[in-house]
């Protein structure tokens, strides 16, 4: 990867349609459970073969039939042990059963699905990736060193040291393992706070949101649900302070609200829509020149004041007429969905 690329686990793939899309790479701790599941699956398949063999043996009592069955069993064992992964990945388009459960997929490094040859190479070389084997009882002379347990240190090192998180088999085959999750959400933040639309009408018409700013606004709108009101203001202030100057808004305007209003203006407001019905909020103005103007008393039938005033309330409660309770009582609206 290029040096300028961010330190990340996403990888860009350019398709024949000349579209670059991103895949998320799967690290060792996503791949290990998938491998363990695969081992379970083919061990279970072998266990079934053995059970059927025992049953047949009891049923027929024929030595010849049993030995033919034993031959087939050994053959199945050999094929499953060495070619389970290659066969699955070829016929299920880069997925074994374990990978399917864990939401992983193997693809070529150029983004195309892997070929049968690649699947064979990467699965045959798994033995080298699982090296060096540690024998159970290596540290205890009482136990005979019978069972060799793979430590997979070679594969782990290789995954850590390569930018595409490839083990040796992946390097030789030219493949990588990516996350292929099915659960997606489509986040479009809904804004149903009346104050946002009201504030958005005061943003000058000649202000154009830059693409970077648009991205920032969308990210902010998506994540603000996870932040406390105080933290939101702290984060938003860095961007809104220059804007408050530029728009000539009063300095005690809520930064969070201004960010949200800009988001609304950029992503949600229709160009030709009628100005929103501001209701009780129509009397308020966020502009600096209107600061000294006495706030018109809302009509008696208006919505509760606590709903209406926070727009003008300050980030610092002591500068503002609004009480801290009103800030705390601000309804959590515009949740990310």
């Amino acid at each position, binding site marked *: 990867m290029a040096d300028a690329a961010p330190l990340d686990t996403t990888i860009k793939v350019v398709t024949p349609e000349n579209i670059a899309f991103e895949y998320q790479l799967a690290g060792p701790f996503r791949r290990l459970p998938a491998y363990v599941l695969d081992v379970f699956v083919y061990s279970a398949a072998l266990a079934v073969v053995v059970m059927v063999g025992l049953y047949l043996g009891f049923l027929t009592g024929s030595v010849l039939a049993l*030995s033919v069955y034993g031959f087939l069993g050994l053959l199945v064992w050999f094929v499953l042990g060495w070619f389970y992964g290659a066969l699955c990945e070829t016929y299920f388009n880069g997925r074994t059963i374990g990978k399917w459960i864990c939401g992983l997929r193997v693809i070529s490094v150029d983004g195309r*699905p892997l070929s049968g040859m690649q699947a*064979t190479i990467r699965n045959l070389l798994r*033995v*080298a990736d699982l090296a060096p084997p540690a024998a159970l009882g290596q540290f205890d002379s009482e136990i005979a060193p019978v069972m060799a347990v793979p430590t997979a240190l070679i594969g782990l090192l290789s995954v850590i040291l390569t930018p595409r998180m490839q083990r040796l088999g992946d390097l*030789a085959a030219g493949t990588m393992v990516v996350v292929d999750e099915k659960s997606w959400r*489509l986040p479009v933040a809904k804004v149903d706070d009346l104050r946002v639309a009201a504030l958005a009408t005061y943003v000058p018409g000649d202000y154009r949101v830059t693409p970077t700013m648009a991205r920032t606004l969308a990210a902010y709108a998506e994540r603000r649900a996870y932040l406390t009101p105080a933290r939101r203001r702290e984060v938003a202030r860095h961007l809104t302070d220059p804007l408050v100057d530029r728009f000539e808004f009063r300095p005690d305007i809520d930064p969070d609200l201004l960010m949200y209003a800009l988001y609304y203006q950029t*992503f*949600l407001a229709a*160009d030709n829509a009628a100005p929103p019905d501001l209701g009780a909020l129509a009397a308020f103005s966020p502009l600096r020149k209107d600061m000294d103007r006495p706030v018109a008393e809302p009509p008696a039938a208006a919505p509760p004041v606590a709903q209406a005033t926070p727009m003008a309330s300050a980030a610092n409660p002591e500068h503002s007429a609004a009480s801290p309770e009103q800030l705390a009582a601000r309804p959590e609206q515009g949740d990310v969905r």
Partner: protein
Amino acid sequence: MNVATLVEKRRAQWAELEMLCDGTGSPEATARFAALYRAACADLALASAYQLPPGTVTYLHRLVGRAHSRLYRSHRFDPMTWFDVIFVTAPRQIFADPCVRIATLLFFALFSLSAYLAYNETAFPDYAQDIVGTAALEQMEASFEPGLNGNLSHYIGMAGFYIKHNTSIGLQCFAYGILLIPCVFILCYNAVALGASFGYMIREDTPGGETFLEFVTAHGPFELTAIALSAGAGLRLGMGLFRTEGRTRIASLKANAVQAVPIMVAAAILFFLAAFTEGFISPSPLYYPFKAGWAILSSGLLMFYFVVLGFPRQEPS
């Protein structure tokens, strides 16, 4: 048009594409899939122009990724290419590959040396016992002493065992080739251990020696060649990391892996042939010249395969 309306408008098509990603539908649906996929690609390409929110862009990346892997399926194994790999690519690769020569030389040199050391009881009295172990040698003597006999069901079971056991060793040797040293170790270990057993059993005074010779004659050519070949394939793989020939290390490794696989396929087939021979012909009380004839025939076939099929030639194009 604002972004929310745009997303809302496109969303139905994205949802449809998402649904088509999950299963194969009618031909009409499949035809529609391509159109929807191109539309989603276009949406992704224009994402920054449309100022789509990052969440939506992430969603589009995933959607296009899934549709892409659905559209471009993997190349499956084609039996026609298998034939080519086994009878055209593999023998030529074996004939031309220096790694195969090195592995074969190393294997047979060590095998012969070890056999000589084990055979020469006066000069090296303890060699075979040190290498193979006294218990293993006694077991071998005991098993070959009574002569060869068996029945069909025993043969079938043993053939299965040899396929699994011996081919696994070969594949392991190949896979460890990428680390080079374990591959060379497995090769040398097998050469030395087999040679020592061989040398010990052909001493004049070893009980069961005659039977042993009769047993190993038939499958020897296939099995010993197969071990050397799988080590050669492994070495080819590992050498790719060092002899890059101007490519990047990883590109060289990939190219060498593609060259190594046909050799390993040939080795695996030889292991299978050896296993069937070892299972059915070797332990049977067949007339000895028949077994010897089989050994000669198999050696001849191997020669034909390596030299006649493998000899480099100009492709008529």
